[in-house]
């Protein structure tokens, strides 16, 4: 059997002959080669992901300060968590960010994707330009630029003053830091936008044509054709961006100088986890926090999948 046969499926497989000893040997050799090629990833997975995860699960039930060996404390870390005002603050800040930031970002991504879905001159250029912030958005340098923009007498303050507003510095005002972070995430709409664009290309134009014949306006076409046809892509983006939002760390660390300030208003979950682990040396507590986050994100993912039956339509399904 040649490689070509294998790929095209026209080899001996279709002939119903029993596997010969040579073929079994070859199979075994191929399996070995397969694992050999997988080895770097497997080693990485077990040594850098699975192993440490198990270790952190153990540490979550210990008191461990990085210096002395961990000592078993049972559920103490978890019970402490829920009476810790800063833990509750970090959960609140993160929840607000996820619940507000994700939908706004997806709406922006979909809106721009629909604008870019027309065949105009230079659309390739526009797509690249709108995608660019996603490439650099999570970087340290953008966080620094963002801070400089929203600081006292920064560009936002000055622009606001020139049109008669008094925006002031957002960085030092606990009431204005969250909008600043939401703007930062919305600005990085490029990745979901590209996926929306690909989804929009899949919507058959006949559907729109038929709808036009029936006299449907643009709003109706959007609600009755675009959204349902796009729902698998929407589901994918929603899941991805929600989980992504939970991970916000670098920009919050840079903008607040690692403190989660002012007045705890940027104390995102992962930032507090980092503080507990590496600033206060309470690694057991930090591990417990990490596992609470894993469980919460797991439950949210599960809920998304459960709810998807009700609103996600895959073409070809009888709906």
């Amino acid at each position: 059997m040649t490689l070509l046969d294998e790929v095209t499926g026209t080899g001996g497989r279709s002939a119903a002959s029993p596997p010969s000893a040579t073929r079994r040997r070859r199979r075994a050799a191929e399996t070995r080669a397969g694992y050999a090629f997988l080895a770097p990833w497997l080693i990485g997975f077990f040594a850098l992901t699975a192993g440490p995860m198990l270790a952190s699960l153990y540490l979550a039930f210990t008191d461990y300060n990085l210096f002395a060996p961990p000592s078993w404390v049972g559920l103490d870390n978890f019970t402490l968590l829920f009476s810790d005002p800063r833990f509750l603050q970090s959960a609140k800040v993160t929840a607000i960010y996820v619940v507000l930031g994700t939908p706004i970002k997806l709406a922006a991504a979909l809106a721009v994707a629909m604008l870019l879905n027309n065949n105009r001159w230079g659309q390739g250029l526009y797509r690249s330009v709108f995608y660019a912030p996603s490439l650099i958005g999570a970087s340290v340098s953008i966080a620094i630029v963002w801070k400089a923009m929203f600081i006292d007498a920064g560009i936002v303050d000055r622009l606001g003053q020139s049109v008669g507003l008094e925006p002031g510095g957002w960085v030092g005002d606990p009431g204005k830091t969250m909008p600043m972070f939401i703007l930062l995430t919305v600005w990085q709409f490029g990745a979901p936008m590209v996926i929306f664009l690909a989804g929009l290309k899949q919507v058959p134009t006949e559907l729109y044509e038929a709808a036009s014949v029936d006299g449907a306006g643009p709003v109706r076409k959007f609600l009755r054709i675009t959204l349902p046809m796009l729902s698998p892509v929407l589901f994918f983006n929603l899941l991805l961006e929600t989980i992504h939002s939970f991970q916000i760390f670098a920009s919050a660390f840079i903008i607040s100088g690692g403190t989660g300030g002012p007045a705890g208003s940027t104390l995102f979950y992962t930032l507090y986890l980092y503080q507990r682990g590496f600033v206060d040396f309470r690694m057991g507590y930090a591990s417990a926090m990490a596992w609470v986050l894993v469980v919460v994100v797991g439950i949210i993912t599960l809920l998304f999948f459960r709810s998807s039956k009700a609103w996600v339509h895959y073409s070809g399904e009888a709906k």
Partner: protein
Amino acid sequence: MKRYTLKVAGVAAAAALALTACSGGGTETPAEGAATADPTEDVTLNFTWWGNDDRASRYQEAIALFEDEHSNITVQPTFVDFPNYWTQRSTEAAGRNLPDVMQFDLSYLREYSENNHLLDLTPYLGESIDVGEIDESLLESGALDGKQVGIPTSTNTLAMFYHPSLLEQTGVAAPSEDYTWEEYNEFIAAVSAAGATTPEGQPIYGAADYTNTFWFFLQWLVQQGIEPFSQDGEINFTEDDMKEYLALAEDLRASDAVYPVDRGIQLLPLGGFTVNESASEISWDNFLAGYTADSADENIQMLPVPSGPDGEKGMFFKPSMLLSAGANTEHPAEAAMLIDFLINDPEVGRIFGTSKGVPATQTQRDAMVLEEGSVDARVVAYEEAVADQVTEPVPVPVKGFGSIEAEYKRLGEELAYGTVTIDEFVEQWFSEAALMVQ
């Protein structure tokens, strides 16, 4: 789902460090005797400190001199800012991988020493490390449980800095030297109420809220006759003590007479005092060099801290910039030689001046070039002038000091924003301290 896998990996990354830490275990004990250096062996020493570029270039100069004297030793230097310095050290300590020589702070000494992460330098004292010129009580501050785990290289004491030019603008006179905390409050309120502005139109304030710095609270406690920490490492002050101290500036906060916290936060790493919008600030006296450089005000003046209830200042010299060696070092003898060089060599004294504080050894103090009116000359003059007011021993930091100090600062910020009350501040601080100081 790929992002999710990544996420889990990210969460687990913290634990990866912890995992390697487990295998390190806390079983090593420092060597009993002193190791001897072999001048024919090529040795590389890792050396790290916290500080800015200015300090880095001074250290580079000092290291070059050391390497000239010891051609077989190469020093590998690194540096970072103070908060990140300690996150780096903690992960290194967990992996038993601390640098051979490092700058250390009193706040963290006990934590590392109790778990045998620092080399006991006792066998080297008087041998390769000459400590003859270091004041005995100063040297003792680097010794815990009978082990010399750090050697202080300099001392600081608190001072109240002010900009005479800003005072002139507001028409408020500087406090007299025997001023009290209440008089300091009056001074701050008067400057803020004067209505003067900077050339950029920013209002000029008397000072930022001084109650949100833990060391000033300790200074105030000492003035009240309260030893902040007991000999066996327990907290020795009460919730009421802290409430009383925080209440000192309550009226100033309520009347917006202190430098606005939101502007202060946006100026970081500078502050109201260094951008010449705040007329005074309490801090360590070695800050004069940094203040002068940042504010471009060559004429910053210094006063001692406000007096306590009995009219005494009760000041103390805080040992600073200790030098320690990692217990895991493979070259203890060479590490000791580097420490000795840094504390005793006159050229090193000339290079650093007072930028780390006033040097601990007479040789280095004498080696400083004290030009009339220079920053170094003024810091030395200040310490000489207040010497008879320095009557108290420095409070010995308890285990977890670095964390409770940071917690105090964080709560201070919340107090300034009004998101916590004094009572909530004190309650939260004590419940946090109960976890940290064990």
